[in-house]
């Protein structure tokens, strides 16, 4: 198992260097998005409007954090099941998205889009929130606060461990 250290956002050269099953320690900025945020993003694209974030520069993390206790930078975080986003992902990839983090397998359509557009899908282990909390620098609501845990949060991370699933 090769271990790499990368700063986000990843550029195409970074992605092309990676191999399936490599471990990567990511540092930089992640944007969380679950089902509801995906639905909204795709609706905005379909209406022909501009998204409030540049997908090409965005690392999407399928995650719904728990609220932070006062004094803590962040509550508990961890990946949710990626396949629930599969219906939305190809459209997002066509619109610039290249880096995704979640857990579990992806659909054939998503895998094809990942290959066609030079994207990468990382797996993060679920159920290790306390451990992962040590890798979070800050967390703030970025968009759609009314969605609660389904809002988009901006998460600064340091050396957060993920594994290359497909690229």
């Amino acid at each position, binding site marked *: *198992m090769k271990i790499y250290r990368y700063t986000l956002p990843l550029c195409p050269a970074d992605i092309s260097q990676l191999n399936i099953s490599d471990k990567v320690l990511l540092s930089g900025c992640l944007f969380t998005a679950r089902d*509801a945020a995906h639905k909204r993003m795709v609706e905005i694209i379909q209406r022909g409007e501009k998204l409030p974030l540049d997908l090409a520069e965005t690392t999407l993390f399928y995650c*719904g954090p728990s609220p*932070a206790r006062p004094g803590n930078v962040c509550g508990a975080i961890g990946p949710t099941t990626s396949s629930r986003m599969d219906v939305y992902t190809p459209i997002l990839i066509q619109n610039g998205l290249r880096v995704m983090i979640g857990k*579990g*397998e992806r659909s054939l359509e998503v895998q094809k889009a990942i290959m066609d557009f030079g994207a990468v899908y990382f797996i993060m282990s679920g*159920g*290790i929130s*306390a451990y992962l909390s040590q890798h979070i620098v800050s967390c703030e609501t970025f968009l759609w606060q009314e969605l609660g845990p389904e809002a988009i949060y901006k998460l600064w991370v340091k050396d957060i461990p993920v*594994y290359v699933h497909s690229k």
Partner: protein
Amino acid sequence: MAYRYVSCETIESELANAIKYITFTPDPELPALLKNALANETGEISKDILNCMLKNIELAPKIEIPLCQDTGTLVVFAEIGNQCIIEGPPLPEIINETLIKVSKELYLRPSIVKDPLLQRENTGNNAPAIVHISIIKGDTIKLQIDQKGGGAENMSRLQMFTPSASSEDIKNFVVETVTLAGGNACPPLIIGIGIGGNFETCALLAKKAILRPLSKKNPLKEYAVLEQEILESVNATGIGVQGLGGKTNALAVHILTAPCHIASLPVAVNLQCHSHRHIEIII
């Protein structure tokens, strides 16, 4: 008959302590099983993640960050003695009130929506819990409390087999279930299998089976053997930890059975992720 009165405050405080405890501390026998899996594992990523899981278990109670951000649906199996009288509102109300308080106090993620199909508006407080009540003999209240995450629950399955089905068919169904689940259910798993009863009871049996102490063998030899066979078959799939390849896909298989109709053989497979958070309290 002498009755024992239990105050609603007693239940609330015991339950609150229990929910708090399982938010940060998993099944007491889980670390040993994870260590054992680690010793036998050859998959590099599986080993790497098993190590993280063990560190997570050590860290969570110290820093009071939940073991997993998905603190799930609260499932409670309540056995109430027929000589026990609860002073106060009905038990489900007490449970929900406590859950709402504890969710706020511990900053748990709100993970429950009001309506499953329409709007899916978050209740914001993790209520309602799912409560199964049965009346037993005696004057105590036994509560089995389970924080059940969505990932593994979503990959659970049920099939109405007919009496011609064999142990082998059931084994294949379980292997098929964990294969379809892949990494979605956050393996290594604890697999609860309910056999018998009817459509709804076999699902309940499967959930209850998960809650059996991990080191406890099935009392019926034939089922103990079947559990071991299923465990070996599941681990031979190569799915590994988090679906990333290895020998460790499940840590335990628990079967629970009930009588059933002459025409039926219902089987339910309820998957539990490695974040196995449950406790039993007796009041």
